[in-house]
């Protein structure tokens, strides 16, 4: 049996960020003078409601996080001037009521998939709302909501809302009983707060919650224990916290799918401030100004047309004042004289799609608005905020500037590391223009582009989840990345380089082990090669990154060196285009053996393996060429003619050369022997028929493209010396300005002449025979 409804209980079910609901809440507070105001919001923030009472400029959000071993869960409860929750907070406090949040904390599992606490819950119950949309002949629930609530007659609004939410919830429970499970934990918790409040006071209790929860809360509040609930404690080992962050209308509008709430915050802000007519008028002006600023023609006639359309639409739809879609529909019909590639965004839900008409994009952007909130200076912030500010100040990196850093200078190196950490944390406004990369280039300077942006502070506060200082936070992010990378060597080598740039090389026994495991498991020669390249670059440049003496990179180099040779020897494949990844891996092995002999297998043993690969008929030609080059560059002698013999077919030769040239470019150029590579290749190409040559040509071109022009002319000289024709190398390389089609035609003609001559026994050979 349920108890009779308590007269002191007043539940207002709202849609979050709805001006009409906010007004309803304000009226209720004035009318009821409640003793308690209970609001759907994180109950673990109740001790800190004072922070919300400071003089902030909205929008702001309560940002909550939970850091765990495996990652971080983050969620926001955004508040703006016209949020019913915000009005309940401020008006409730003014009227002397005791105000509290009654929902579960954001880290609770009930919020597992929810990033925006104030998203539309009924969005998850689409069937019910879809039926209503059909009934009222509107496009979607946003249009339905405006029609029924925002621009409808305020008289009887409370009852209308109650019926709306009862209907949606009721239908959802009969058609989708399973989907309410996550909501029910929250509702049980909220109901317990309500019962406790009703038991503690004789005065009215006003509850402001998502309308979707309202029917359930009314029911649950009637029955059950009346002790205040325990606010759940976060699980052991989890690091949780909540801070206020400045928010922006852009972010408020950017939630998509199940996370989204009311669209077009700028429109509703104006609706809240000035009413529907004024909002529509101001936005038409704003949109016209925006479009004209972009050189779009918006004539007075267009604006008159838009206005009469908007009014006509409002009247047709039974609105006494123009609503959001009346305004947008009128403007779109009057201003767009093209066919659209994408439907008008307000007829669908969700974010803009590519191909949306530019005029429509401007219109929706104007309705989104660009307001950003600011926090009162006394608002507590996570320690990271102070650390970042102090560091930027101390290192002279605040504001907007473009510093050039010399990494050999101690102070500049510290600056660089700080900046890299901030970049790693995803703080906007820190972009590196130029500097050392994971390749083998040696550069000791960096250029940065630093910009002081509005969205920096929120990002720093939100990064506070990762640690109290810049270095700790960066380390946490790196560790998360290691976990996420698993055995993906590419990602791991990225983390490796990132760790060096951030000055966190010591992190990382874990990283070393992870990479060693990754290398051992990795079957991809190219990935091992890129890890080796990165590790070798770091190891060689340890004076820059301060990684001297770190065993980490040495371990990686050793593991990668062994693994690369192992994989290379096992790699069997038919002829195919040269793959740069595996050639780079062989080149990395070459560099490792040259520059870090103590960490790799002995040069002779690597060369022996390479020679075996070079002679292996089952290996792909580019790998064989690369292996031949590797052996050669490590001091083994190269029998060019013998090595090339196995790959002399037209579909292999070019790829083989590509491999050879990539790994042993210097050796080829320095070659003076009479029977060298150039000679061998010349012989083979000379023996090819025209057709074969055409087959071989693309790969040959690619192979020779590895040489810069000056070195190509060196090879040309070698060739001329071999042939003894006396031409100059330059003329051989000069670009022929002849139409290739003409050349082909000439070749074809010659071939036909030869054919005819042969057929008629008129060639030189046949004459002699005669």
């Amino acid at each position, binding site marked *: 049996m349920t108890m009779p409804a308590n007269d002191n209980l007043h539940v207002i079910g709202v849609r979050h960020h709805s001006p009409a609901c906010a007004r309803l809440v304000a009226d209720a507070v004035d009318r009821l003078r409640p003793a308690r105001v209970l609001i759907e919001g994180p109950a673990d923030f109740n001790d800190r409601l004072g922070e919300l009472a400071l003089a902030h400029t909205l929008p702001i959000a309560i940002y909550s996080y939970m850091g765990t071993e495996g990652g971080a869960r983050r969620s926001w409860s955004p508040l703006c001037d016209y949020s019913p929750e915000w009005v309940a907070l401020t008006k409730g406090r003014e009227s002397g009521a005791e105000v509290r949040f009654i929902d579960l904390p954001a880290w609770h599992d009930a919020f597992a998939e929810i990033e925006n606490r104030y998203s539309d819950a009924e969005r998850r119950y689409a069937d019910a709302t879809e039926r209503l949309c059909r*009934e009222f*002949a509107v496009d979607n629930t946003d249009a339905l909501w405006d029609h029924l609530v925002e621009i409808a007659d305020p008289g009887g609004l409370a009852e209308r809302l109650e019926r709306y939410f009862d209907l949606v919830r009721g239908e959802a429970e009969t058609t989708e009983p399973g989907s309410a499970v996550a909501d029910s934990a929250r509702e049980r918790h909220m109901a317990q707060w309500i019962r406790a409040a009703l038991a503690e006071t004789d005065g009215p209790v006003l509850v402001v919650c998502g309308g979707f929860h309202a029917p359930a809360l009314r029911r649950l509040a009637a029955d059950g224990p009346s002790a205040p609930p325990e606010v759940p404690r976060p699980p052991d080992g989890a690091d949780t916290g909540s801070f206020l962050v400045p928010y922006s209308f852009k972010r408020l509008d950017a939630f998509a799918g199940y996370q989204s709430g009311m669209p077009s915050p700028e429109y509703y802000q104006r609706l809240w401030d000035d009413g529907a007519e004024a909002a529509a008028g101001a936005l038409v002006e704003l949109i016209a100004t925006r479009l004209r600023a972009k050189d779009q023609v918006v004539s007075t006639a267009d604006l008159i047309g838009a206005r009469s*359309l908007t009014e006509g639409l409002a009247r*047709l*739809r039974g609105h006494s004042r123009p609503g959001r879609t009346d305004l947008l529909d*009128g403007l779109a*019909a009057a201003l767009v004289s093209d066919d*659209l590639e994408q439907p008008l965004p307000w*007829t669908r839900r969700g974010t803009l799609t590519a191909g949306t008409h530019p005029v429509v994009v401007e219109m929706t952007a104007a309705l989104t608005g660009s307001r950003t909130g600011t926090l009162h200076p006394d608002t507590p912030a996570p320690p990271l905020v102070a650390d970042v500010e102090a560091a930027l100040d101390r290192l002279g990196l605040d504001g907007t500037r473009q510093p050039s850093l010399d990494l050999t200078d101690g102070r500049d190196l510290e600056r660089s590391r700080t900046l890299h950490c901030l970049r790693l944390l995803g703080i906007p406004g820190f972009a590196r223009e130029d500097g050392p990369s994971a390749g083998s280039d040696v550069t000791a300077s960096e250029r940065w582009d630093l910009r002081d942006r509005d969205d920096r502070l929120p990002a720093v506060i939100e990064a506070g989840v990762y640690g109290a200082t810049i270095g700790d936070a960066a380390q946490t992010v790196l560790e998360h990345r290691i976990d996420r990378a698993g055995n993906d060597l590419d990602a791991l080598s990225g983390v490796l380089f990132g760790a060096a740039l951030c000055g966190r090389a010591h992190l990382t026994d874990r990283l070393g082990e992870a990479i060693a495991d990754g290398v051992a498991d990795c079957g991809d020669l190219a990935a091992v090669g890129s890890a080796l390249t990165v590790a070798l670059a770091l190891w060689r440049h340890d004076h820059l990154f301060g990684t001297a003496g770190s065993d980490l990179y040495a371990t990686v180099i050793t593991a990668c060196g062994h693994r690369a040779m192992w994989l290379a020897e096992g790699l069997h494949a038919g002829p195919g285009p040269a793959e740069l990844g595996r050639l780079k891996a062989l080149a990395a092995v070459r560099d490792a053996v040259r520059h870090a002999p103590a960490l790799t297998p002995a040069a002779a043993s690597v060369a022996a393996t390479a020679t075996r690969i070079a002679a292996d008929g089952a290996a792909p030609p580019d790998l064989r060429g690369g292996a031949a080059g590797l052996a050669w560059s490590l001091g083994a002698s190269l029998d060019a003619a013998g090595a090339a013999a196995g790959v002399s077919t037209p579909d292999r030769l070019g790829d083989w050369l590509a491999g050879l040239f990539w790994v042993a470019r210097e050796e080829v150029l320095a070659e003076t022997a009479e029977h060298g590579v150039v000679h061998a290749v010349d012989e083979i190409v000379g023996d090819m028929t025209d057709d074969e040559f055409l087959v071989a040509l693309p790969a040959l071109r690619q192979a020779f493209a590895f040489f810069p022009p000056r070195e190509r002319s060196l090879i040309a000289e070698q060739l001329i010396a071999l042939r003894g024709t006396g031409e100059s190398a330059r003329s051989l390389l000069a670009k022929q300005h002849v139409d290739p089609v003409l050349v082909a035609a000439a070749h074809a003609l010659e071939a036909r002449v030869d054919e005819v001559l042969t057929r008629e026994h008129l060639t030189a050979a046949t004459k002699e025979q005669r």
Partner: protein
Amino acid sequence: MSRTEPKLQRPPAEQRYADELAKLAADDTAPRPPGWALSLQAARTFIVGDEKLGLARKFVGDPSLIDRALVTLATNRGLMLVGDPGTAKSLLSELIAAAVSGDSTLTIQGGASTTEDQIAYSWNYSLLVAEGPTPRALVPAPLYQGMAEGRVVRFEEITRCPLEVQDSLLSPLSDRVLAVPELEGGDGMVFAREGFNIIATANTRDRGVNEMSAALKRRFNFETVFPIGDFATELDLVEAEAAAALERSGVPVPPSRDVLEVLVRVFRDLRSGDGSGDRMQSVMSTAEAVSVAHAVGIKAWYLRGGEAAAGDIVDCMAGAAAKDSAEDLARLRRYLEQRASKRKSGHWQDLYQARNLLPG
């Protein structure tokens, strides 16, 4: 004895829905724009339907599109419906004309050979020779009639007309007057009566609206009609339309919903390119899907005497898909090989097995 009227293949909308229109007009209390047969609200209800009043939904699409279209017609701009072929633009224009004027037959069919004679007026030449240019000798065309009687004129496929012919609409649209220079006195000017407006349709495939003169463009409000966004809605529509078409063709079995589901899914995947960016060049509209479903049903009934199977789709689709290009045929083949093969249900496997029926 009453003679039975011969059955029309497709009566105009105002005849098909005469009862609904009469009922709406009788109950219509909202103010009507001057010259309109119904109020805006009633016209809208006629098109989007109302279950409580027993009115069927006649056009599947965003209700806001209907709102904008109707309000546009009540202003002094024309309405231009653009979109891919087969998105029911003509149906929509017919329904709107029937609701607004009670008559959807003042229709100009645009084409390369359309002349001003077919748009405005021409002459009865025997009378012209006998009497000279008199109102009796004048043969009014839809535009003349629409202006003189205050009704909505439909101009189908306007962009397929030569540009100078299109521009003959300029003064009827902006000054609301049509000059007949041959006639003297008051007959030489036809001033549009209230209720006159123009609904033009243009498809984006043949010749888009880009070539249309700017002067004419700004006398129209543009509305783009999109393919149906929602799978279930499109399936319902195809099912209803295909069943009706089959009934008219004397096939007593309605198409199986499972088979239609496969068909509609294939059309939607090929229409959107399914994220792979490989969309068909030919038109994969809902109307095409209905005609393929129709063909499938006919083939199964008259050639085999049974129900359609998913395999039949392939045969009939080849005609729909490949009428333009061999590339589309290749796209269809690849779709069947790679997508259809991965879907496990029986009908999808039928479809996959039937891939060999594709020509070439």
